[in-house]
């Protein structure tokens, strides 16, 4: 049994539940971030209908303290989720080589989806931190402020052209993996779930780009 000590430093006769707790945390932080992203999509997407609607929602978030407290909490969840997921991600180049070689050899969609999720996770860590820092250090959030940032510098437009697909690729694949990995969806349901999930992620991506478009061409005055 794996609990039998095989090293002098091995803790004797105690079974550690930490792997289970960390796996729970990884899944739950991921699920929370998925829920947040969907709500975030509705919030910023409201600017497509009307910038005033978005500003109104923003005022509610300010007034209830959700922006001031919720923002840093989401930042913390993002970092925690990364640390937890990083336990599984190969960082050594030899292991990365093995994973890429396996994906290329197998021609297996789910193996590639895992590679995409790992890569997009790294990108989100950096870009998500920049995005959150920029937004949270300039509260309250308004459609005009967003528009000004994008219209002032084209680099921000390029930033979001990369960031939006990364987020929805990671979110979409993450949701699919949680559902299958945790036994919620069985073998027969997997292809159907993958299709529906891809459709939702693609729709979210389109709404994200429409919002970006709206901000780029929004009259600031």
């Amino acid at each position, binding site marked *: 049994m794996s609990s039998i000590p095989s090293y002098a430093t091995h803790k004797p006769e105690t079974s550690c539940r930490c792997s289970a707790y960390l796996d729970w945390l990884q899944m739950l932080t991921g699920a929370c971030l998925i829920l947040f992203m969907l709500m975030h999509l509705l919030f910023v997407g409201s600017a497509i209908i009307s910038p005033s609607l978005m500003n109104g929602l923003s005022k509610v978030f300010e007034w209830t303290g959700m922006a001031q407290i919720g923002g840093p909490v989401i930042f913390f969840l993002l970092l925690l989720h990364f640390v937890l997921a990083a336990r599984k991600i190969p960082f050594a180049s030899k292991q990365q080589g093995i*994973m890429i070689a396996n994906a290329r050899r197998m021609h297996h969609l789910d193996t590639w989806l895992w590679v995409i999720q790992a890569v997009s996770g790294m990108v989100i860590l950096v870009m998500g931190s920049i995005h959150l820092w920029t937004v949270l250090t300039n509260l309250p959030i308004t459609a005009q402020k967003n528009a000004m940032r994008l219209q002032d510098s084209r680099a921000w437009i390029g930033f979001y052209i990369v960031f939006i697909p990364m987020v929805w690729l990671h979110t979409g694949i993450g949701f699919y993996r949680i559902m299958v990995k945790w036994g919620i969806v069985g073998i027969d349901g997997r292809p159907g779930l993958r299709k529906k999930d891809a459709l939702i992620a693609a729709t979210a991506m389109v709404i994200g780009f429409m919002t970006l478009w709206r901000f780029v061409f929004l009259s600031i005055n």
Partner: protein
Amino acid sequence: MARMLTFNIFRYNPQDSASFPHMQEFRLEETESMTLFIALNRLREEQDHSLQFDFCCRAAICGACAMVVNGRPGLACHTKTKDFPDKITLMPLPVFKLVGDLSVDTGTWFRGMAKKIESWCHTKKVFDPNAQEERMDNALAERIYELDRCVECGCCVAACGTALMRDDFLGATALNRIARFILDPRDERTEKDYFDIIGTDEGVFGCMGLFGCQDVCPKRLPLQEVLGKLRLKMAFAAANNLLPKFLRREVRL
């Protein structure tokens, strides 16, 4: 008109100091209902007697002829050439020790795995040779049998990114075996005993969910579902003592 197939086959004999790993090309005319097992036998008989590969049952029962076919692990006897393009690349299974060419030693790996997870019924009952065998509900026996159909070919291990990266990962076949014992009422191990074996990052929590195991299993074992339910079972086994009563769950396989 029959196709002319081109086989690119990995060649290396670790026993021969003059041998070095390389790919060798063979050409063979396809026949009706040709399997890779038939093709390999013909290549060995007609073109190169030194070609090494394993086979035994020719009916996907023994699991000996597993190899990597155009990138994916599968059984040679179970794989028809008509399902592939003209060019077929054959490699030995990764993870396992190479015997030579396409032949690998899965036996040592599986024996080690069986010892690690104590792959036998643990019981304190003393065996009585005169007593009738205890009866088991037919539906339960069938569920155990479903998981017991594993032929230890090693395809799921060879297709698993985690197993390729980390040699301490138990692999889907071991987790499937544990699930089979959890179902079996003759095994008196407790949930804590099972947790000690698989409730770690080397066990069920190490699975990264690439689902390659499920998609290459030649016996179509429900590995994805088994691993999912095992993860849930072990996760609740660890968390139940922290959860309020209404959230506690005992997950059944």
